[in-house]
């Protein structure tokens, strides 16, 4: 047993295994309450809901791997949802075809501004993305306030978010699988992926090794913006409407999922598999707490305590004396 833990620790996969165990534990606790928790239907539904968080967490993870943090998630999600719905209203049938790429492109554009600020102006990511979040909020208020643009999801968005086109698997889950596969390919099979880890470890060393670290940072923020907006498009399709502040509930769970999955909050270390497990864990936790009809107070407290306890079990830093 000890040898196994040691090997896991050395391979860096201990958090993934621990988070996976916790997920199974949660399911067991849930099944004591109601056998529905183990039904395929319930699990598929949870995975469908988890895919929205999963897409957001993908972008959040890439930024955290770089050693940054993206606080512009809430309003970039909203930008993706609102703009994709609006473009369908502006141009009718032709607009509907463009709705999804247009929404994602708007998010990527704001992500580009994030990247310019962080990579080239050297403003700390925490504060610059905060500013972009405020600007995105202002843009959406101006956009939706003066006149009422269309806020209904197009049929295509609805199909992607809620449909089950292949073998009864939710389409949203397939989207997450596609995004996840692309991310794993990016991180482990491309030079850019290597460079992301390198910059996260020590940007100065990466720069001296000939990596254009600023371009890497820029690209990562563009991807993160696109991921947030894509989640907004999915959410709009899921709830059939885009609305203000629709992304507010995604910032903290995304960061928590990434960190619970073993990605180091200061960057340079982490695996996408961990993020997947973290996302599933957070989604299940939220779902079980709400099914058990625990009041909101208890849910918040449990949620916070679980994150702290899990990190105390496997996410502790080193002693100064080591």
């Amino acid at each position, binding site marked *: 047993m000890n040898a196994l833990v040691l090997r896991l620790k050395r391979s860096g996969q201990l958090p993934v295994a621990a988070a996976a165990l916790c997920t199974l534990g949660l399911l067991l606790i849930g099944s004591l309450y109601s056998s529905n928790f183990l039904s395929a239907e319930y699990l598929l539904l949870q995975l469908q809901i988890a895919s929205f968080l999963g897409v957001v967490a993908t972008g959040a993870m890439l930024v955290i791997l770089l050693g940054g*943090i993206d*606080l512009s998630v809430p309003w970039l999600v909203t930008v993706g949802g609102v703009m994709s719905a609006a473009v369908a209203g502006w141009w009718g049938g032709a607009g509907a075809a463009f709705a999804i790429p247009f929404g994602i492109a708007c998010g990527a554009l704001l992500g580009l501004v994030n990247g310019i*600020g962080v990579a080239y*102006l*050297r*403003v*700390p990511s*925490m*504060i*610059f993305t*905060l*500013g*972009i*979040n*405020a*600007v*995105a*909020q*202002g*843009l959406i*208020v*101006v956009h939706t*306030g*003066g006149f009422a643009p269309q806020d209904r999801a197009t049929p295509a968005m609805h199909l992607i978010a809620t449909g089950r086109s292949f073998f009864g698997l939710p389409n949203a889950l397939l989207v997450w699988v596609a995004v996840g596969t692309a991310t794993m390919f990016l991180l482990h099979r491309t030079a850019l992926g290597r460079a992301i880890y390198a910059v996260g470890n020590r*940007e*100065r060393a990466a*720069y*001296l090794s000939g990596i254009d*670290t600023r371009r890497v940072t820029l690209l990562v923020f563009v991807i993160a913006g696109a991921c947030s907006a894509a989640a907004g498009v999915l959410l709009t399709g899921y709830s059939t409407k885009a609305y203000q502040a629709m992304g*507010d509930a995604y910032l*903290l769970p995304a*960061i*928590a999922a990434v*960190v619970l999955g073993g990605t180091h*909050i*200061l960057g340079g270390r982490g695996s996408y598999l961990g993020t997947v497990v973290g996302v599933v864990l957070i989604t299940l936790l939220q779902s079980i707490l709400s099914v058990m009809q625990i*009041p*909101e*107070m*208890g*849910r*918040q*407290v*449990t*949620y*916070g*305590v679980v*994150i*702290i306890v899990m*990190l*105390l079990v496997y*996410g*502790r*830093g*080193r*002693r*100064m*004396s080591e």
Partner: protein
Amino acid sequence: MTTHAAWRYHLRAQRGLYGAAAMFVVIFALYIAKHPVGWTLPVLTTAANKGVLLAIVAMAQTLPVLTSGIDLSVGMVFVLANCLASHLVVGTPLQAALGIVVVLAAGALCGLINGLIIVFGRLQPIITTLATGTVYFGLALGLRPVPGGQVHAGMADAVTGAPLGVPSLLLVLLAVVVLVWVPYRKSAIGRAALAIGSSENAAYMSGVPIGRAKIVTYTLAGLLAAIGGLLLTFVTYSGEASSAIGGTYTLNSIAAVVIGGTSLAGGAGSAIGSVFGALVLRTIGDLLFVFDLEPLWQPLFQGVILLVAVSLGALQLLKVTNRLEVFK
């Protein structure tokens, strides 16, 4: 060192503080000049009531940031103190005073818990306070599932009015600076906190009491956030467990810290700068109001101004001669 050189050193070290103070004076002068009533006690009192709350929460945020940490739970401790005060600060003056002590102690306890987890649990401050913030918000929700409650009316009127000829909240702010920030900054613990922010390894090697300094720092941050929450209760006469209020105060406090010239990397800055940063942020919002800007455009302008203000630090890049200095 001649006094002249000493002054130049002082000016350079406190550049951020004086920059924020100058920015505030300009913006506030513009606001008063454009205001239909102008420089009168009621106008100043209203402005103070808006600005001081954020100023105190920004001071709370400054302390962990100086140690190169961060406290994402300040907004939630603020909300928790607000809800607690709406239950406890009632009744006879003695009971209300006791209630105030309990509220402040609860805030300090929240901060102490943050500090203990960060030091002995060896978790990163950002994720620790993110999680404890959720817990504190849950407790606030338990205390006030729906907005309501009350507060000692006499105290509230005295604190939000100007019985002494100056807005009382400005006196409270001054008292907090003199009684909390100055002693902390002058103490060995405060110096240790700045040393940790500059280089934790070097501080450790020099025998700086790292654990103790961090625990005191986070405890004081909790205490300051609770003072802010208590004052909020006096301003609104009620308690409300709103995650939106908590989140906004946390994020604005970080913005105020940066505008006030404190480096997010730690080791340099001051809570007084953050006070001016907070006042700048608040006055900008009012400025858009007196200039009759379409309300629809206000959030966008506020966002753009915030973005420009935090990007001013980029001007430092022009002075970099060795390209390697750009990358940390």
